[in-house]
């Protein structure tokens, strides 16, 4: 009855040293591994930044490589990358977004839609080299050659070119776009659709005026992630018209009387940033001499991808805010 601890709250757990030790080990182990990971990342990025920023300049970004790649810039590789990615987006976004709208809004939750979604998700896991071979076989050897036969264009489409590289990359990023669009559409609350239907909107009017505008930031996030994925790929473009070195930009001139208008020619070959890094490091006559350029090219590619991903993060934040706003009021 006179136990002084009787009415006190006892905070300490029963003396179990092994329990405390495992706790300690777990927490510090996780800390250590996280720190190690950050350290490695910082080392890699830091080295690239330090070594690469030296030769980074405006002329480096715009000039052609000269003197067996040991001097000059990476202008055509940046030009090629941007052009291919723009063409890729032009092909992938309409197909991907329409497919997602169909799957999510029209097809319903049937066995077929589940099989389609499963295939889409599997497509995301296929190694990119397989996409490259697919592009070579399907786009160039099948579609391209058939086009040449039908249009009597000799050998115009049936060879590796920008057009087919973008088409292949478009197939590669389709899963990213479809999945993120589907998620964005799903997260628009049913009450919003109900409101539109309740006022006599048709299904398409509801999708066009209510669902798509609210899902737009989410869809844009997917598109930007798709671009950064496409920018980082090397294997698919390898088969599809990515050139070691080109003396000219892939630009054709359309003659209209006195004027000749420069246009990007999608049937030409191109240079690509990620592939350029590969050839600088392994295929050039003197890899040691190209080292500063390798680092700078890598830095440019990394900055490009980080910038794109940051944009995606901002869009996602905006998207969350819109959805939270609706939910916050209606729940």
């Amino acid at each position, binding site marked *: 009855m006179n136990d002084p601890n009787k009415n006190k709250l006892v905070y300490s757990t029963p003396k179990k040293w092994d329990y405390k030790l495992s706790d300690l080990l777990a927490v510090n182990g996780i800390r250590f591994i996280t720190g190690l990971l950050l350290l490695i990342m910082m080392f890699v990025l830091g080295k690239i930044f330090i070594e690469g920023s030296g030769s980074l300049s405006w002329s480096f970004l715009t000039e052609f490589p000269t003197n067996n790649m040991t001097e000059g810039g990476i202008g055509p590789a940046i030009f090629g990358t941007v052009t291919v990615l723009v063409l890729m987006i032009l092909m992938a976004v309409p197909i991907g977004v329409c497919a997602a709208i169909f799957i999510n809004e029209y097809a*319903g*939750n049937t066995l077929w839609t589940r099989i389609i979604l499963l295939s889409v998700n599997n497509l995301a896991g296929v190694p990119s080299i397989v996409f490259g071979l697919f592009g070579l076989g399907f786009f160039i050897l099948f579609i391209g050659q058939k086009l040449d036969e039908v249009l009597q264009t000799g050998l115009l489409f049936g060879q590796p070119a920008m057009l087919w590289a973008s088409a292949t990359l478009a197939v590669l990023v389709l899963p990213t776009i479809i999945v993120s669009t589907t998620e964005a559409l799903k997260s628009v*609350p049913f*009450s*919003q*659709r*109900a*409101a*539109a*239907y*309740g*006022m*006599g*909107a*048709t299904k398409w*009017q509801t999708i066009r*005026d*209510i669902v798509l505008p*609210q899902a737009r930031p989410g869809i844009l996030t997917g598109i930007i992630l798709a671009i950064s994925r496409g920018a980082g790929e090397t294997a698919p473009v390898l088969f599809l018209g990515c050139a070691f070195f080109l003396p000219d930009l892939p630009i054709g001139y359309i003659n209209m009387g006195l004027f000749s208008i420069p246009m990007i020619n999608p049937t030409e070959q191109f240079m690509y940033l990620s592939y350029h890094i590969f050839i600088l490091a392994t295929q050039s006559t003197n890899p040691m001499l190209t080292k500063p350029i390798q680092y700078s090219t890598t830095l440019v590619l990394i900055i490009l991808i980080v910038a794109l991903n940051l944009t995606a993060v901002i869009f996602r934040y905006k998207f969350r805010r*819109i959805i939270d*706003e*609706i939910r916050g*009021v*209606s*729940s």
Partner: protein
Amino acid sequence: MKEVKVKVQNLNVFFNYVQALNNVSIELYTNKITSIVGPSGCGKTTFLRTINRMNDLILGFRKTGEVILDGVEIYDHNIDVVNLRRLVGMVFQNSNLFPKTVFENITFGPKLHGIKDKEKLGEIVENVCTRAAIWNEVKDRLNDNALSFSAGQQQRMCIARVLAVEPDVILLDEPASALDPSSTAKIEDLILDLKENYTVIIVTHNMQQAARISDYTAFFYLGQLVEYEKTTKIFTNPTNKQTEDYITGRFG
């Protein structure tokens, strides 16, 4: 002078294999307020959503029996659902305004149905907002985001938005259940005003509310219509024992 607006006969509603409404027959009268009461899960909302075919959107919905609006069976295959939902407007339990401006929210319906003239749209906004007793609060803020208003204001905007598509019948699904007493009072006044031009059907959990505003009251229990009478009768002298127990608060 009771004119039947909506006539429901032997209505059974199923969701997959669960029966939500069991042999409901009821006549709802023009320019009257009918309130539908009953414990949660008794099929009140399902009944409401059957009248503007909102249930069609739910997978596994099936029904037998007839729902007749102005002498026309609304589940006939040649009925335009879109047009039906325009004639039978619905206000939901939680305000579901779009994340757009007040003006865009209220003109959403009229725009869908082809009104593009900016001046005309402005007139509609002023007109319906006045009728929904919200004009004084929104007239200087028409270009503000509708979601920045208070919950009570938002719910009145929802009603204004429904009025803008010029319906005949207005379905209200617990429109005041998420609101404070003063906002509720405003909504109730507004509903009483609506009676003159519209047929109003309101689902409510609030017995006093049903007693205050409605002309007729229907009591649903376990998917069945137990009693349907004049509100004064049902609240003073109900025929059915279950109704009496429910409205006096002994169960439910």
